[in-house]
Structure formats: C-alpha cells, structure tokens
C-alpha cells in the first residue's frame, strides 16, 4: 500500500535513531555486563573474555557497592516522601481559595525546577558552608549550633536530600495542582454542608480524588530519585567517608574513571532491575488499593 510506505518515511528516521542509539546499547549493556570489559579490552577487543555472572557476584561482595546501594535507598526512602509532602503542601496552598497572586507564587515555587542542577548545587554548597554559610547563620538565629553539613557523614545525605527537595518539589506541585483543580467543587460544598472540618474534607475528599495522580507522581519520583548523580558529584564528590556515593556515582567511577566497563554495565543493570521491581511493586499496590482506572 502506498500510504503505508509514506508512513515509514515519517517514522523510519526516528525509529532508526532510537534503535541504534538506545535499544542496541541497552542490549549491548546486558551482554557487556557478562564480560570482563576493561581498559585492555578497550585498547584491543581480543582481550575480552566472557565471565558469565562473575561481575554481579563480585559486586555483591564489594562493600562500596552495598554502601552505594544503601545511600541511594536512604535518598529515595527519605527524599521521595518528603518531596511529595512538600509538593502536595505547596499545591494545596496554591489551590486554596484564599490564595492571592497565584501566578506569581506558582512561578516562584517552580523556578528551581528549571535551573541547572550543577549550578544550583554549587550555590547550595556555599549556602551549606560550615563557617560562612547562610543556612548555619539562619539556624544560629534560632539557637542551633553550626552543622558541618557536607563534611560530616551523618549530615551529608540529609543536606543533599534538602537540596533535592528544594530543587524538585515544584515539578510535582504543578501536576498535583492540576489534579486538585480537577476535583469538582461541589464535593467540597457537600462535605461542608455535612459539617466536615477542613481536615476531614482533605482526608475524605481531596486525598481519595487525588490518589491516582499521587500514585503516578510517586512512581515517577521514585524512579527519578534512584538516579541520583549530579548532587553528590558537585557537592560532596561522594564523601565524606563515602556517605554520599550513589549507585550511579559508583557506576560512573567504575566505568569512566577506572574503565571497568563490564562492571559498570552490571551496576547499571542492577539499578534498572531495582527501579523496575520497585515500580512493579508500587503498581501492584495501586491496583490492590483499587486506584487504577
């Protein structure tokens, strides 16, 4: 058919690019994770050997890998709920019928999202400085002693989480705001007439109506937070005491600093499997709760 041939000219170029520069590398990555691809193989492919699952087995015995995994989970488990809570709070404020200058506040709250992560990480590194940093100065005003945010292993990850929440909350805020605005106003009116308090209206009207969007936003945010990289790269370089080495940071160093490309591929795949498993788990949870449409 003629029209079908023309259609291929429309989709062909894009599909070719995606096949060659995305699908092929993903499959090649799986294959590479089963080899000992290193700097010698980079120089001469004849040095390449197939090692089966050895990369995976060795990774599971490396303390730093577990550390990176633990750090990343810490970032996800604390960062995502905090992020969502702030996004939801901001969206509720913007949606409030008392809110004034809504376009201005919306833009201001969203601004950090479009900024360049490296640049704002540089800013925050200075804001979080121990001696001259503004954060410690502000905390000092309410009587809190200076904290060595980026130099103390106990505080480095919390500092990065605070930074990430500041940078990202506006994104979900916009999506949740759209969700809030689509909730029919008469539902609130009816609840009000029935004598429901503001808290009850939030609990029994807002949350259930928002649940589908909230779940999707949660899934996307979890997947995004698993890919932590630029923040520790710029702010802490993985330190102190490797307390901010993330899985991707580990992969980057393994692959592009030490050129252990086989190991790096295995790391990337494990991260993918982890994200995939968590996403599936969340989806199942969602279906079980009867949220899925």
């Amino acid at each position, binding site marked *: 058919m003629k029209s079908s041939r023309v259609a291929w000219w429309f989709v062909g*170029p894009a599909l070719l690019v995606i096949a060659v520069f995305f699908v092929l590398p993903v499959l090649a990555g799986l294959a590479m994770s089963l080899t000992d691809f290193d700097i010698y193989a980079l120089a001469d492919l004849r040095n390449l050997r197939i090692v089966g699952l050895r990369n995976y087995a060795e990774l599971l015995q490396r303390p730093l890998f577990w550390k990176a995994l633990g750090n990343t989970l810490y970032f996800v488990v604390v960062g995502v709920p905090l992020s969502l809570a702030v996004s939801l709070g901001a969206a509720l404020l913007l949606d409030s019928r008392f809110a004034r200058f809504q376009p201005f506040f919306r833009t201001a709250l969203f601004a950090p999202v479009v900024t360049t992560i*490296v640049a*704002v990480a*540089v800013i925050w590194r*200075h804001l979080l400085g121990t001696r001259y940093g503004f954060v410690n*100065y502000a905390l000092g005003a309410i009587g809190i002693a200076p904290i060595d945010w980026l130099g103390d292993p106990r505080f480095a990850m919390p500092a990065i989480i605070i930074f990430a929440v500041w940078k990202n909350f506006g994104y979900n805020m916009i999506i949740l705001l759209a969700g809030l605005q689509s909730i029919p106003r008469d539902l609130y009116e009816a609840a009000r007439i029935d004598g429901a308090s503001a808290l009850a209206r939030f609990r029994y009207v807002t949350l259930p109506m928002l649940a589908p969007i909230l779940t999707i936003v949660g899934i996307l945010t979890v997947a995004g937070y698993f890919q932590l990289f*630029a923040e520790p790269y710029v702010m802490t370089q993985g330190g102190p005491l490797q307390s901010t080495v993330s899985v991707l940071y580990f992969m980057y160093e393994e692959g592009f600093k030490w050129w252990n490309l086989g190991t790096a591929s295995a790391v990337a795949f494990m991260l993918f499997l982890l994200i995939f498993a968590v996403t599936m788990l969340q989806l199942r949870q969602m279906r079980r709760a009867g949220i899925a449409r």
Partner: protein
Amino acid sequence: MMPRPAAIGVNGLLFAASAIALFPLLWMVSTSLMSPGESSAYPPLLVPQQPTLDNYRELFARAGMGRYLANSLLLAVAVTALSMFFNVMAGYAFAKLRFAGRERIFRLMLGALVIPGQVAMVPLFLLLKHLGLVNSYGGIIVPALASIFGIFLVRQYALSIPDDLLEAARIDGASEWRIFGLVVVPLLRPIIVTLAVFTLLGTWNDFMWPLIVLTDQDLYTLPVALASLSREHVQDNELMMAGAVLTIVPVLVVFLVLQRYYIQGLTMGSVKA
C-alpha cells in the same frame, strides 16, 4: 464566614515558601557581584558593598567562559532544531498514518520508557567511540536526534487532529508531505513549542552524558565546565556564583517567556504516562 486568619495564613505560607525557593537564586546574583572574599564574612552579607562585574570579566578572560557558553548554546539549539524534525514527524505518523505494526511498536516504545538512560550509557559511549563521535559535538547531538518522550508527546496531541481534514486534503490530491507541512505542522504548533522548550532546557541542563562524552575542555558545556571549575576553585565563591548566573539565567529567561507551553507539556506528559 471569617476568611481573615485563613487568608493571612495561606498567603503567609506561600510567601515564605516562595522566599525559600527564590533565596538561593537571589543570593547567587548578589554574591556574583561581590569582590573576592567578600562573601566569606560573618554574619553573611546579603548585598555587595561595592557591586562589581569583575567576576564576570575574570570568567570570560581567564576561565574560557565564552567558549563554554557558545558550546552550550550551539548544542542546545542544534539538538532542539534537529530532534524536532524526527520527533514531530514520527509522533504525527503514530497518531494519524496507518502502517503495519504501528500499535505494537508504539506499545514497545512506551514500555521502553521505564528503562533509565544510564543503562545505555556505557555501550553508547563505545559505539560513539567507534563512530569517531566521542569528544565531538556529534557525541551529544546524534543520540539525541529522536526521543521516545518527544514522539509520545506529539502523538498525544496529534490524535486530536480531525481525520476528515486530512482526508479532504488527500481527496484534493495533496501528497502526504504537503499535508504534513501545510496542514499538520500549523495545527501542531503549540505542542511543537512545548517540546522545543523541553528539549532546549533539557539539553542545556544535562550533565552526566556531556561529562562522559566531552573530555576535551574546549568542548565543555556550561554545567560540565562549572562542575570542573568548582572542584578547582573551591574557595572562589564569588567567581563560582558568576558562573552559576551565566548558566542559570538563560534557561530561566526562556522558561519565563514560554512558561505556558512548558507547564502545559508537563501536565500533559505525566498525567497521561
């Protein structure tokens, strides 16, 4: 009704949250105008005593900022312009043209959205090395020519084009290419702007891939250059802030001007995903 306390509470909180969101950015601009060492004071200074543009001069004269700015600009514009062709054509075809396996391919692509880009990075690096594209603008541009997300976004929007309109043009004897250029593209304009803003900002802000593929300092984009400078010049607060201003202000301006399109794409992309 007694809206007073509630109104004050809501607006007060909004004001406080906005202040926290904007403070680091305002502080960055202010500090970038300080003379060296001025920001290392206690209590911290909020405004420079004698505003100066010396940090900016220094960045361009000695740190090669002009070069990085040009690299970032060139890559962002090139990726945006070129990828638009691929994504808009494909997105339209997935919505409105019939071809064998259309639904199946589309479903596969949607499934592939869950694969994080980093899984492809190591082999992609080797592939580009083989093609001689590592350490060149091509290393950034070529893999970014088409994106599943872009195709998806255009498709969702193109679904709303009435089939009758296309049929009528076909009966008039217009070729598929003419229809695309004269009928479809004008109708898709809002989503084209949306996707262009997304791509432009995304390319400008991207960090990990340029860090890997551009090893020659002359090719650094602003984020890569800034990260490298900030590792060398840990103490030069004011200089770093000027670099941050140069990196952030262009994207912030693009966003402010085209905000409507950006927000639209954002709600559309995720509510449907």
